[in-house]
């Protein structure tokens, strides 16, 4: 086949592809609805199957049998977990406007630039060989088909590179789309997946059923050859280890490859598609692998020892039978597999590169030196285009350097191991809140370094770029550090060996450093946003932000990166859906957040954050601040609580004090009154004694009878004075409670009879009758006999004082009850008015007109009686029905209660 014809067919194919992509983009522009659905989504995921699958699997199968399968079984297993893992990533990706896997990981670890840059770096170094693999496959098959080999500087691979670069730019970097969806590209990728599957099935069918007589015939022929029959089983236990590690590796790769992340997460339009893809994608993998073993066996049978590269069997078999059509179909299948991968991968890498390596530098310089008006969207686009060209050129360079030293699968597995380093931080970040930025950096760096040492450097050494001595003998002859058998771990294949060591270092460092390092506020917020995405906070991080910015500033900023038209439309849409803030030009945190996400689509989350922060002069409330505020608040609350308590205590104390003061001032007033009264009472008899004594002293001639009369008055007044002083002393003693009380069992009947007889003379003098109404049996009570009789005598002398002479009558009675005794003294005197009933027991209160009649007592008798009674635990009272005289009575309990004994000793009760 001529070079020109094949080149024309290839170009035509690529143009058809572009037409599909363009149509897809236009469809979005016209109808607003992309051509999408679970089928398109599942087919676009099949970008996983590259020329490695198309050519390399057959190559591997022809030497290792079914060992090519773990690379597809891993994704099949992972697909069952997609609704959980990828579904969650899609939800987060949509909320945070994630545009690449670097974006995702960086965003998870606190929108960190360094994490994003490290992921980007690993991805570029890891993936460039993979891209070169595609270029090599396309150019090799092209040369095989045209029987031409150009050995000059610009070989076939170079033209392939240039053409693929042009198409990648056309597909993925024609313009900046704020949403970062490439609907057209996805349609084209889905179409390519159909083409490569159909091509492989056609070639497989041709080989199996045309060149051979079906599966049975092919396997029978192979089984007849012992060297081929050994492909049907594993050689030894080492193969099982390789099988398991390749399965694990591909499980990680299917979610960590930048192109898989691009189609599975970034380009996803409906989360429900994931569920159908969970079985459609494995089905695709089964179909495309169905004929791998038959083609490999047919190749081994046909080209035994002819030096044909097993990686080209798919093409070589139809060629050998002169079937140019099928050879072209095979070539186109391989081309579609390669272009699909290159386009998506370079676009993903270019986005990551522009967001995490170019833009941060540019933005820093731009903000620092030239805060001009020019739009930056053109710059972003230029960076992406240059990056695409750069990656393809790097791939070309790698292909030139490594030359023919590698199989397709070898290079592919090396790239897989590199991107597998993302798995711990990615999955850990999704399900483990504790994963920190420092841990992610440590894990990624450690895993990457070990990958480079055990896999990447040896690959360069084998191709002659580096001296090969260090792979054979170890660096500086240290066999323990041999890259292929690190720490003496020999006997493993290179990829499982590298995977094991890098994963131990990666996971170990990630977990360890995460555990010992502390997360910043933004890391914590992002961690909880990612881990709890099922019930994400509606306000996003905006609720943790405080600061101020103007709407016009934000819009101008957005316009610089995504274009004025886009920015205006987005802001208009925002203000229509949200309520407008009262101050028309003041942006609320929600709008700041919105701007950040809008920019994130174009320049990545971390850069967007820095850029927006330059306008929105505010900052996230740090955790420490929050804690400080909380601390302060709780302290204030505790303090005010204490104050409240104190003031309550004070209040009660004040009330108590006030009561005590009132009581004290009352008492003091009473004392004053008492003293005044006593003084007054003492002065009356003293005055009369003095004046009569003076009369007698000044007039010696007073006759005897007069003298006798005057001296009689002096004696009587002196007696009265003595009595008064005695009673005051008595009362003072009672009140001060200094007297000893002699409580003995006494017969009250006897005591009362004695008392009555002692006042009998008084009654006889006045002619007042005294009736004693006493029980016949003795009444026993534990009491102070003298005090008791003093009370009775007091009451009796009081009664006789108020009775009319001759007609007066006093009745005394003693009642013996269960709980105590009651003594009552009734007279038939004038009685006591109601208002005075309470006062008669007060000191010096004498009922009756003190102005006209001379007081008949000291006025202390009843007070003393009340003190004695209350001291004995009883009570005293007076009843005076009008016109029936007065009845004084007191009650003494049989068992004096402890509280009352001795109580009420200070002054009168109120």
């Amino acid at each position, binding site marked *: 086949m001529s070079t020109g014809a094949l080149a024309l067919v290839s170009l035509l194919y690529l143009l058809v592809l572009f037409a599909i992509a363009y149509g897809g983009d236009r469809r979005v522009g016209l109808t607003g609805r992309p051509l999408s659905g679970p089928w398109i989504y599942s087919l676009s995921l099949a970008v996983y199957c590259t020329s490695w699958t198309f050519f390399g699997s057959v190559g591997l199968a022809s030497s290792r049998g079914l060992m090519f399968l773990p690379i597809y079984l891993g994704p099949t297993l992972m697909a069952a*977990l997609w609704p*959980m893992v990828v579904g969650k990533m899609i939800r987060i990706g949509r909320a945070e406007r994630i545009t690449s896997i670097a974006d995702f990981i960086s965003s998870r670890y606190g929108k960190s630039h360094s994490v994003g840059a490290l992921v980007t770096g690993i991805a570029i170094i890891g993936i460039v060989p993979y891209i070169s693999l595609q270029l090599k496959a396309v150019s090799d098959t092209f040369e095989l088909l045209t029987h031409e080999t150009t050995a000059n500087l610009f070989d076939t691979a170079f033209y392939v590179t240039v053409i693929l670069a042009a198409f990648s730019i056309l597909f993925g970097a024609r313009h900046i789309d704020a949403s970062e969806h490439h609907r057209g590209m996805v349609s084209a990728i889905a179409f390519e997946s159909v083409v490569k599957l159909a091509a492989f099935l056609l070639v497989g069918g041709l080989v199996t059923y045309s060149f051979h007589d079906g*599966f049975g015939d092919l396997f029978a022929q192979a089984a007849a050859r012992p060297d081929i029959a050994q492909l049907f089983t594993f050689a030894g236990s080492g193969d099982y280890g390789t099988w398991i590690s390749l399965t694990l590796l591909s499980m990680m790769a299917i979610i960590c490859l930048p192109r898989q992340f691009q189609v599975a997460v970034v380009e996803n339009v409906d989360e429900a598609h994931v569920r159908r893809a969970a079985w459609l994608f494995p089905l695709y993998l089964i179909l495309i692998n169905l004929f791998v073993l038959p083609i490999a066996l047919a190749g081994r049978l046909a080209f035994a020892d002819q030096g044909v590269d097993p990686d080209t069997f798919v093409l070589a078999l139809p060629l050998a039978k002169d079937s140019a059509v099928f050879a072209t179909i095979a070539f186109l299948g391989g081309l579609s597999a390669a272009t699909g991968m290159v386009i998506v991968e370079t676009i993903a890498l270019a986005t990551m590169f522009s967001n995490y390596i170019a833009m941060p530098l540019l933005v820093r310089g731009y903000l620092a030196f030239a805060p001009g008006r020019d739009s930056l969207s053109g710059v972003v686009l230029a960076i992406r285009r240059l990056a695409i060209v750069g990656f393809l050129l790097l791939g070309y360079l790698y292909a030139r350097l490594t030359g023919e030293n590698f199989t397709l699968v070898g290079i592919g597995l090396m790239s897989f191991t590199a991107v597998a380093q993302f798995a711990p931080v990615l999955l850990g970040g999704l399900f483990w809140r504790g994963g920190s930025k420092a841990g992610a950096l440590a894990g990624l760096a450690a895993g990457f370094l070990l990958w480079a040492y055990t896999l990447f450097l040896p690959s360069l050494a084998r191709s002659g770029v580096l001296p090969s001595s260090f792979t054979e003998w170890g660096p500086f002859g240290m066999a323990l550090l041999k890259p292929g058998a690190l720490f003496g771990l020999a006997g493993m294949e290179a990829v499982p060996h590298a995977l094991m060591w890098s994963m131990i270092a990666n996971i170990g460092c990630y977990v360890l450093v995460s555990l010992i390092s502390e997360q910043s506020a933004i890391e914590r917020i992002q961690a909880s946003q990612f881990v709890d995405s099922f019930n994400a906070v509606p306000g996003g991080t905006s609720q943790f932000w405080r600061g101020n910015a103007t709407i016009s500033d934000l819009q101008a900023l957005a316009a610089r990166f995504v274009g004025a038209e886009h920015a205006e439309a987005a802001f208009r849409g925002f203000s229509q859906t949200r309520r407008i803030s009262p101050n028309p030009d003041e942006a609320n945190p929600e709008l700041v957040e919105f701007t950040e996400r809008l920019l994130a689509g174009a320049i990545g989350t971390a850069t967007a954050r820095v850029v927006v922060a330059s306008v929105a002069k505010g900052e996230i409330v740090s955790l420490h601040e929050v804690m400080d505020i909380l601390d302060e608040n709780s302290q204030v609350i505790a303090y005010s609580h204490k104050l409240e308590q104190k003031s309550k205590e004070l209040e009660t104390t004040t009330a108590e004090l006030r009561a005590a003061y009132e009581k004290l001032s009352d008492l003091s007033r009473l004392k004053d009154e008492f003293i005044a009264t006593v003084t007054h009472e003492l002065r009356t008899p003293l005055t009369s004694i003095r004046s009569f004594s003076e009369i007698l002293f000044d007039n010696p001639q007073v006759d005897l009878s007069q003298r006798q009369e005057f001296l009689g008055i002096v004696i009587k007044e002196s007696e009265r004075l003595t009595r008064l002083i005695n009673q005051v002393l008595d009362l003072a003693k009672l009140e001060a409670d200094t007297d000893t009380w002699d409580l003995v069992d006494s017969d009250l009947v006897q005591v009362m009879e004695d008392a009555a007889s002692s006042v009998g003379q008084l009654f006889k003098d006045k002619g007042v009758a005294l009736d004693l109404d006493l029980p016949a049996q003795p009444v026993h009570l534990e009491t102070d006999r003298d005090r008791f009789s003093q009370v009775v005598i007091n009451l009796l002398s009081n009664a006789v004082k108020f009775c009319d002479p001759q007609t007066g009558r006093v009745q005394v009675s003693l009642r013996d009850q269960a709980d105590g005794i009651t003594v009552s003294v009734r007279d038939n005197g004038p009685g006591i008015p109601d208002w005075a009933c309470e006062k008669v027991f007060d000191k010096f209160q004498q009922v009756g007109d003190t102005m006209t009649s001379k007081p008949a007592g000291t006025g202390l008798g009843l007070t003393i009686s009340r003190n004695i009674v209350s001291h004995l635990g009883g009570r005293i009272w007076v009843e005076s029905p009008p016109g029936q005289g007065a009845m004084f009575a007191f009650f003494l309990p049989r068992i004096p209660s402890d509280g009352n004994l001795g109580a009420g000793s200070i002054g009168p009760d109120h």
Partner: protein
Amino acid sequence: MPHRRAFRLRKSKAVRDKLAAAFLLGAALFTPPLLMLFMNGGMVAGVPVFALYVFSAWIGLTGVVALIAEKGEGD
């Protein structure tokens, strides 16, 4: 209606659990103890036993996942 939504959530959770179980089934099918059973180098119906087993298990597993995913989709 909240209770219907809760019901749907529970349903989707049940689907997820079943898919996780399918994952475990697949992991068991494609790891050595079971693989070794079919590593005897024999042929069945003209096809190597090992290849036949792996592809049958693969198709079977995909079928199970399809059943789970599509049955859940109906609600």
